[in-house]
């Protein structure tokens, strides 16, 4: 890949006869330039996906509620997200008089930074991760647990009652579901014997069913079915999406931590929420549905399978939002602590016993 890109640049700049002069300058910093190019290649499609995910969300919820959804801007309303983005970009960013000015702007940054940083270790195809590190799964867990600071800091710095209530709810809810999420991931790393996300995917490509050409039966979702469900639901709660969206519950606290934000500062929270949704969908696909692996033996593996799986989980996010009423706060806490945490603890023991028994299939 690197050689191809270099050859392309050489061909392109040689059209103007500038290649040798340019390469003399760029060569010492080329590794850095190459990493930045890879980061751009991940983040630009991600931001475009976020924009069109909002459009898709409005369309799908519209259809589910027998409406049409956005259809005015461009053909079939396809330019709607661009118009929304432009509007947010040119809006004034208001700062409340009593707000803590510095932290008021740190809030949105702390929301979006971890949501983007976590993408560094996600493998898009075999060998297609920005940083193929050993502790990848743990890194993702650490980064997603940082996202909560955006909400808390924004809620506190706004110096207003509703945002503060939102921040309080967020800190309790997100910490609770992180525990269930982490415990579910312990099962995954037990049976794949690795924290490296690429290795976790490769481990799912091995097994009796994969040898018979029915790879989708070898993926982690069958032996870890309860963990698969727990992880995805915790992911929905972790991103503060409906039906767990009490953090911004419109009917009680207007929009929670985002009440006082406008323009691009608000857009940062919006981008972070949707980037986190895509991240949870991607991780669920990578950890439980075999990432880039093809479900059947006669079709080639590749990024398109991962994209298909991500789309499926994103559709589930939208479907949940259109279907379920919002949970009551005590119900959220009960589900997290009294249902998910015990379930994951029991399943860790079950998997451990299974692996020590003669019927161990995870090798």
């Amino acid at each position, binding site marked *: 890949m690197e050689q191809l890109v270099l050859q392309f640049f050489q061909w392109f700049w040689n059209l103007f006869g500038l290649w040798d002069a340019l390469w003399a300058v760029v060569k010492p910093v080329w590794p850095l330039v190459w990493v930045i190019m890879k980061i751009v290649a991940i983040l630009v499609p991600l931001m475009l996906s976020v924009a069109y995910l909002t459009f898709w969300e409005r369309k799908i919820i519209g259809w589910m509620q027998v409406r049409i959804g956005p259809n005015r801007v461009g053909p079939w309303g396809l330019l709607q997200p661009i118009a929304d983005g432009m509007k947010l970009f040119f809006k004034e960013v208001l700062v409340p008089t009593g707000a803590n000015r510095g*932290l008021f702007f740190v809030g949105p940054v702390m929301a979006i930074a971890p949501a983007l940083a976590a993408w560094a270790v996600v493998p898009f195809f075999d060998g297609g991760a920005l940083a193929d*590190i*050993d*502790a990848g799964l*743990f*890194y993702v*867990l*650490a980064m997603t*647990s*940082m996202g*909560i*600071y955006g909400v*808390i*800091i924004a809620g*506190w710095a706004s110096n207003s009652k509703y945002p*503060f209530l939102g*921040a*309080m709810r967020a*800190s*309790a809810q*997100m*910490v609770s579901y*992180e525990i269930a999420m*982490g415990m579910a991931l312990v099962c995954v790393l037990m049976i794949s014997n690795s*924290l490296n996300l690429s290795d976790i995917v490769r481990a799912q490509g091995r097994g009796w069913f994969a040898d018979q050409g029915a790879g989708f039966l070898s993926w982690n979702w069958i032996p870890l079915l309860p963990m698969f469900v727990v992880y995805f639901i915790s992911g929905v709660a972790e991103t503060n999406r409906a039906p767990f969206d009490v953090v911004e519950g419109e009917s009680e606290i207007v929009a929670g931590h985002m009440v006082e934000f406008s323009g691009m500062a608000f857009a940062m929270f919006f981008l972070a929420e949707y980037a986190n949704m895509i991240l949870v969908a991607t991780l669920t696909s990578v950890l439980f549905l075999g990432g880039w692996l093809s479900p059947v033996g006669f079709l080639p593996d590749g990024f398109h399978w991962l994209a298909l799986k991500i789309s499926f989980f994103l559709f589930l996010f939208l479907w949940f939002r259109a279907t379920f009423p919002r949970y009551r706060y*005590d*119900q959220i806490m*009960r589900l997290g602590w009294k249902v998910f945490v015990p379930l994951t603890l029991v399943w860790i023991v079950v998997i451990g016993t299974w692996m020590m028994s003669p019927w161990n299939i995870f090798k």
Partner: protein
Amino acid sequence: MDFKTALFYILSAILVIAALRVVTARNPVHAVLFLVLAFFNASGLWLLLQAEFLAIALIAVYVGSVMVLFLFVVMMLDINLERLRQGFWGNLWLGGPIAVLMVVEMVAVLSARSFGPEALPVPAAPAAGYSNTKALGTAIYTDYVYPFELASVILLVALIAAVVLNLRQRRDNKQLNPAEQIAIQRKDRVRIVSMPSEKE
């Protein structure tokens, strides 16, 4: 100075400044956030030492959970710094000597022949494919399994003690039982009365 050394100095400088600001910041919430920054830079330093598991554990555990709860509590407290500072000069006669003693001890240990940077052997570069996480897991669950289990039990005791100390039943609390709510039947709530129609 190579890139790693430069990075070390940048991270350490931010770490020291952040740690200083933790004790000098006027606003307690700012102090907690500076502590988070200090943890973050300490984790960066550990990454430079190739201890990636510990570095990420520091972020996941301390930054991701402990400091969030800390912040949660500090935000809700109405801390009056003037009142906190009132006892400063009164306690200085005790606090000052203890601080000096700690500095002397640290200098004594770190500059000693047995523990100085020269006294310790340079660690061998890890072989290719060496996994920090796996090495740590193997050490904890084989050689150090008893101390590890003992530490877990102590933590469990502390956990239960914290719950027990805070467990107070409130009489005016309207508690819900979700199982009861789900098991409710129509006949429990609605009574159908057959009434003959009345005429005036």
